[in-house]
């Protein structure tokens, strides 16, 4: 399918160099006759070409001419989408989720002012993480790296990371807060105290508590950081599931005039109209259909469809081990479609919606002229697990579709030889 020898040579070169993300100049690329799912205003375009120059999408149309030296890819009708969102994850800040020494996602300063909104997990981001190629070969191009709950229900900050080797986040940071049963151990065993503490934190950040008060919960830096979010800079992403808690959260956010997004929202469908009118987007765990705890009695596979029906912007997240499983996110989107979510909305939830919600839609999330050429070519319907990503481009660079897992696979696919498999053939 891939015609150009150029591309193959480039892939080989990258493989020799070991890692995809070397900062070589972006190659011009013409992808011909794809089914282009723009995830933007133009919807889906059949038999359409996409021209990439200088790492940016220059043209989308039919019969586009290939500039000299450009790599030409014959898509033969296969789907081309924006590179997918990898969910709210700890990609790059953990290698093995169960092995503490490899995990940097949470801060636990239990005895030294545990509430640290100033904690910025992106400073731990390792662009060489082995997890990144594993996600990339699945067509994933960006993720919201999250601070996870350590010793406070205010987890700290994260940000959008493109998986192209960049070490720093794209766009504004986000602040992560967890409410409900999963966080009551940080609020004196009651979720009511989460509001009590939030109110005090807001009072501190807004300067209503003297900085030298013996009751201060925040460091001076923490005050400044929280004040920024309270001033509307950056989203506060709140992990919460119970409908009643979501209602209180909406009331709080309206009163304090902060921009929030909700992650989880297992019972979100019960407050769909309120979420829609407050313009609060939701990251849904599309697998959640069991009463995993007493905050999720109303969990249903129709959550995404019902929220969308109510007018809510829907994206996706994984409640479980979201980092190694980032590739499961598109399965969740497919499940949402099987349970009533329109296909175009599901694709938007993996592309445009998270980019918009996280303030990076000027660069990524759609296939539009002028956007960064982060895109994925698929063997078929990208929302169906029976299909796979065939090629990922980030900033117009074809990313080698290799990972530690494909290396292991290929080593053991070979027939045994005279030397142990540890020796290359």
């Amino acid at each position, binding site marked *: 399918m891939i015609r150009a020898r150029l591309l193959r040579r480039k892939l080989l070169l990258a493989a020799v160099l070991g890692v995809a993300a070397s900062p070589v100049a972006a190659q011009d690329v013409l992808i011909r006759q794809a089914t282009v799912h723009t995830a933007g205003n133009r919807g889906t375009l059949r038999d359409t070409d996409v021209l990439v120059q200088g790492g940016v999408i220059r043209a989308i149309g039919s019969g586009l001419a290939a500039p000299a030296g450009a790599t030409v890819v014959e898509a033969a009708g296969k789907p081309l989408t924006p590179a997918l969102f990898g969910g709210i994850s700890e990609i790059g800040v953990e290698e093995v*989720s169960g092995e503490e020494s490899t995990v940097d996602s949470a801060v636990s300063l239990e005895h030294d002012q545990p509430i640290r909104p100033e904690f910025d997990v992106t400073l731990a981001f390792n662009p060489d993480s082995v997890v990144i190629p594993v996600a990339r070969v699945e067509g994933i191009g960006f993720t919201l790296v999250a601070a996870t709950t350590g010793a406070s229900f205010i987890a700290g900050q994260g940000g959008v990371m493109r998986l192209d080797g960049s070490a720093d986040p794209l766009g504004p940071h986000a602040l992560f807060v967890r409410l409900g049963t999963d966080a009551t151990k940080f609020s004196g065993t009651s979720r009511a105290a989460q509001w009590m503490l939030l109110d005090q934190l807001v009072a501190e950040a807004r300067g209503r508590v003297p900085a030298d008060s013996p009751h201060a919960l925040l460091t001076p830096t923490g005050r400044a950081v929280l004040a920024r979010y309270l001033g509307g800079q950056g989203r506060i992403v709140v992990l919460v599931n119970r409908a009643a808690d979501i209602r209180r959260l909406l009331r709080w956010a309206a009163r304090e005039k902060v921009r929030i997004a909700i992650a989880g929202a297992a019972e979100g469908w019960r407050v769909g109209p309120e979420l829609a009118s407050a313009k609060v987007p939701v990251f849904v765990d599309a697998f959640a259909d069991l009463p995993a705890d007493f905050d999720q*009695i109303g969990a249903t596979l129709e959550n995404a469809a019902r929220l969308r029906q109510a007018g809510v912007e829907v994206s996706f997240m994984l409640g479980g081990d979201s980092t*190694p499983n980032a590739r499961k996110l598109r399965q969740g989107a497919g499940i949402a479609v099987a349970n009533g979510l329109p296909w175009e909305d599901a694709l938007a939830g993996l592309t445009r919606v998270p980019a918009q919600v996280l303030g990076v839609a000027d660069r990524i999330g759609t296939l539009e002229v002028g956007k960064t050429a982060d895109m994925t070519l698929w063997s078929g319907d990208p929302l169906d697990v029976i299909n796979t990503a065939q090629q990922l481009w980030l900033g117009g660079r074809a990313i080698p579709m290799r990972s530690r897992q494909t290396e292991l696979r290929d080593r053991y696919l070979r027939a045994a030889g005279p030397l142990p498999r540890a020796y290359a053939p």
Partner: protein
Amino acid sequence: MRPTLLAMAGLLCCCAPVAAKSRFTDDPYPSTYKAIASGPVLIEHATVLTGTGTRLDDADVLLVDGKVSAVGQRLQAPAEAIRVDGTGKWVTPGIIDVHSHLGVYPSPGVRAHSDGNEMTAPVTANVWAEHSVWPQDPGFGMALAGGVTSLQVLPGSANLVGGRGVTLKNVAATSYQAMKFPGAPWGLKMACGENPKRVYGGKGGPATRMGNVAGYRAAFIDAAEYRSKNQPKDQQPKKKRWFSRASGGEGNDSGGDTGGKRDLKLDTLAGAINGDILVHIHCYRADEMNIMMDLAKEFGFKIAAFHHGVEAYKVADRLAQEGICGALWADWWGFKMESFDGIQENIAIVDRAPGGCAIVHSDSEEGIQRLNQEAAKVIANARKIGMDISPEHAITWLTANPAKAMGISTVTGTLEPGKMGDVVLWNRNPFSVYAQAEQVYIDGARVYDRHDRSRQPVSDFMLGQGGAP
């Protein structure tokens, strides 16, 4: 006396109570399962995957008296048969999960429900998972909506030897006995690697992998001695019931042919050595699977399946040679060190070995609802490396192969005449994210219908809670 899997399974063919093969496997908590009454059912004009590796297009499946009566084209059916139009739909055997913790780690996952790991000693072969099963776990109903008709509920993996697993039919009931699969052998759950040493490292050991192996060996040394002392002597027609002492009789366990007080732990291990209890081992790494295969030889037991086995692809040939199934995930990896080498072609490579037995398992209340999708991922990734796997073959990973590993393959797992009427009608090719089970039959009765609320079980727990309509 070590009956083969096949011979053991042969004893299951009738639903009458099965005489214990030895006192180690007597069952004081017998199955009270009764199939739901149902008239004949004819599913017509469907694409049928039989579970024997065959695909039949435009075919019918006839269920009579709770059993598969016939599979083929244009079948004759009794006049009173309920006819189901399967045009454009697919039919498969009921899905079987060899590794579930439904009921023992139920939803909601509150502390009071944490009944899956008896984390009080590294060897708890004496505990039976069935005594922890909460039949009201809403997860059973969700698994049914995913086409699951039978499942093995196992103890967790905290212990070297976790205890006995139980095979259930996935029917709504107020007791587990009413779900208990008639005649199915028990499983024995063992665990390799990180979990036991993590749990016991700070409380007396084992603290290392070598400690783990020493622990298995010590347990089986005890069991071997116990077994030889308690082995019934040949031709002893007047043998008393082994529990007569407990019930006040004059005889006792050690009278005549037994070697002392009955020991629940050693009963289970001796039953495993005898082959009457099927050994299922949680084991991730290739090197540890090799150790466990040697351990099995040392003590003369057979391993039915390695579970999780994220490195099974590294030992696929030996697994096939030893007749051990790999009960595996499609794509789990990276959540702990021993899962670091997981690859998405694991199942395909285990399957590829001549004689290989690959199983898609869940170990998850989420995964059990969509084992068909997990298999689809395997097909998709295998295709990338030029392995073309047909739907009629892939379905065996979720039906015939787990049935084999659970010792129930003579009665379920395929759509062959005489087998239990455990059947799923899918809205399309099941190997797709969009596939949904429309109807599920267990022993010929429609126990789930996506389009008929009166055929959707709701657990007691969900009543009056304002759950999702």
